[in-house]
């Protein structure tokens, strides 16, 4: 993931804690991908993270578009 990100010209990682939750937001302006295609050839990466997030009662959302880049948001409740 780090290597992939180094190829992008811009990426942002934010970890934001509020009273009720922690939000991790990762954005890049890379190639992007079709979110609907990830079920077949993702190597389990996204599914793996999603199941870990769900184990913490959190939610994960992947927003990506070809040529626009990708934004991944993970929200984990603190209580």
């Amino acid at each position, binding site marked *: 993931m780090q290597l992939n990100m180094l190829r992008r*010209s*811009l990426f*942002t990682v*934010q970890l*934001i*804690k*509020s009273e009720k939750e922690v*939000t991790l*937001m990762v*954005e890049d*302006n890379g190639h992007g991908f079709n979110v609907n295609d990830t079920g077949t050839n993702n190597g389990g990466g996204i599914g793996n993270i999603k199941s870990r997030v769900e184990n913490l009662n959190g939610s994960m*959302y992947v*927003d990506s*578009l*070809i*040529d*626009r*880049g990708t*934004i991944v*948001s993970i*929200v984990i409740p603190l209580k």
Partner: protein
Amino acid sequence: MSQEKIIKVLVVDDHQLIIDGLKSLLQDEPDIVFAGGANSMQEAIDFVSNNPVQVVLADISMPEGSGIETTRSLKEIQPDIQILALTMHEDINMIRKMVEAGASGYILKRTNMNEVLEAIRIVAKGEKYLGRDVQEILLNNMSQSATPSELTVGQSVLTQREKEILILIANEMQNDEIAEKLFISERTVETHRHNMFTKTKTKSIVGLIKYAIANGLIDENPG
């Protein structure tokens, strides 16, 4: 007008209506000829491989090969060809990617026909053209990213994207409108909005707007 000064234009857009509209608008121009239309990258490649074209008006969002890929491919086939992006994308990253791919110009679909004609004539001469709206986007972006590094730890600052969204919120745009404008999902806009409340320690849009004014992101007295 001598034959060599006629600019042959190919219009690449997945929406046929755009192609038909430009065809009709270009027909009155003495120095510009509508050479053809293509609905996809492949059609554009086929056309350019078989027909002389000086300028390509290229959309960016197309289902089978984006305008960025199309630009790269066409420049490979015919390095002299001039690509002019004609798009609704106002994202600075899109502008940069098109220019990096080899585009000579970038104009927005909300521009008027006079600017399209001016842009075609300028890029046909081998010069560069950025639409007036595009120049404004670039200037705004430059002024917003004046700090050399955005790397901040333990400091509540807004990212470039959040500032962009905050300005749109201040312009009374709803989540769905912001999502459409920035080509992101409504859910991501909502997450950004929520993060901005946390980072700026505000609880409402009014609080966010006050923050934006206090930090010079928006003008207190626009106009």
